[in-house]
């Protein structure tokens, strides 16, 4: 048993919480900037693009860390449906955090917009200009943003459920380091798992 990780590695935890803040900020920035007609529209838009690129790069690093360092296994006593939900929601989160920036970048390219990260730094277009492709990608970007937000809500709810109701150490595995600091846990609770956390 001592060879099985009971918590996430430090890089995994650091990336998780950093990206949680960035992605949540990104979702609110996106929802706000398409609605508002105030000066916020311009500065939210100015943050959205470089932040999206940062999230894409971090997500790629995170995926590599995840593939090299398997997360703690799921709890054995978790109902099958919850296990399935855990696996699906985590891979959905990974897919979305990589797909959303790419779709955003592709959609601006197809829409003929210069992809300006700053007032002078421009990313190259990754698709030729095509209004129909723009329309589909822009629609997907919006719909998937809602899906990402709902998945985030479910993820946060599930994490709190593990922490407050099941009290099974799953939440702690992403909050704290090595579980040797929690020797008082019951044996089955020590077999900490990663069903709510995508790392």
């Amino acid at each position, binding site marked *: 048993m001592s060879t099985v990780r009971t918590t996430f590695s430090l890089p995994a935890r650091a990336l998780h919480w950093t990206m949680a803040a960035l992605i*949540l900020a990104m*979702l*609110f920035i996106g*929802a*706000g*900037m*398409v*609605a*508002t*007609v*105030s*000066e*916020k*529209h*311009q500065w939210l*838009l100015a943050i959205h693009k470089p932040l999206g690129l940062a999230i894409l790069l971090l997500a790629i690093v995170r995926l590599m860390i995840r593939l090299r360092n398997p997360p703690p296994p799921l709890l054995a006593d978790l*109902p099958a449906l*919850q296990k399935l*939900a855990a696996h699906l*929601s985590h891979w959905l989160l990974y897919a979305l955090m990589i797909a959303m920036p790419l779709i955003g970048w592709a959609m601006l390219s197809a*829409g*003929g*917009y*210069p992809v*300006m990260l700053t*007032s*002078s730094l*421009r990313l*190259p277009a990754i698709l030729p*200009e*095509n*209004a*129909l492709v*723009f*329309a*589909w990608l*822009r*629609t997907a970007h919006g719909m998937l943003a809602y899906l990402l*937000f709902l998945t*985030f*809500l*479910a993820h*946060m*709810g*599930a994490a*709190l*459920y*593990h922490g*407050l*109701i*099941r*009290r*099974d150490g799953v939440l702690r595995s992403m909050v704290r380091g090595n579980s040797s600091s929690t020797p008082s846990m019951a044996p089955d609770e020590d077999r900490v798992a990663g069903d*709510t956390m995508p790392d």
Partner: protein
Amino acid sequence: MHDSRPPARPTGNGVRWALIAAPVAAAGLAFAYVGGWLTPHRLTAGRLVDELQRNGGGVHPGYRRNHAKGVCVAGYFEGNGNASAYSTALVFAAGRTPVVGRFAIPGGNPYAPDGSVPIRSMALRFNLPNGQKWRTGMNSMPVFPVATPQAFYAQQVASRKDPSTGKPDPAKLAAFFAAHPETAAFRAWAKTAKPSASFVTDSYYGLDAFYFVDAQGERHAVRWRMAPEATDTNPAPAGDHNYLVSDLKQRLATGPQRWHLLVTLAAPGDPTDDATKVWPADRTTIDAGTLVLTGEQAQDSGPCRDINYDPTVLPAGIAISDDPLLPARSAAYADSYLRRTREQAHIPGTAAPTHAQSEAAR
């Protein structure tokens, strides 16, 4: 998801469930608030475009929600270097920058008679050699009627057509103008303005202020306009509702049509946040180069169709000012662009014509 399942420990978990539900609900509500769904009276880009759409006579699939009737033009801008001391934008250096533009008349109805409004517009997209773009949308009046998006929205609401007469209610319009004295300069202009017979003989004003940024990083508040070389203004032909495009074709058949880009530098204290106020006539004005238009194409199939002439798409060397109309234009144009490209793409839930007219966008 998980939190709807029965708890593993069945007793005394009410408070804990509340601690789970509260942050989830709070996050959901905050998101809905930011998206404008909880505040139906707050002006959003979507609500602004809805109003333009209504005044344009409903949805005309594939068309812009404002300045719906127009024509594509193409040519180039010949910079002369005069503005390079004030802006590092490559477009101002001596040399040619390709341009795809669009002439239009305001309003959301793509079938409106050319003589129905005295305003014409010119939109331009400059493709700079470094891949950056400059987009600008200009109008043929020297001042904008209102200074803020809220006032613009109120103007649209006051201009709603009365279903019984098919025209705006004069009392509502009068009430709007009385409540908005900043419209005085525009109204004074509109009183004498006649619908021109040609796109080519009009001046087009950028209206909003911008900043030019020079090589030292210094900002210079500016406004620009396109001044035509052609001045042979004739009365508009009677009985023809689409004379502007035929005139443009005729003139382009005889040769390229030219405008001079005149850039006015603000003096300290000139307002940059109020498009209803002209700057004094004695301000320094630079002739920054010549716009040369060489060809036109129908907007249904021309290269301007798929361009969003968002005036905040700017190259390095030009920046937006604090004019509150600029972010509103950017947000509303993006919404209009999304609506019409979705209709072109036949994305489910769109492209439902409200008219018998079968003319689609393409």
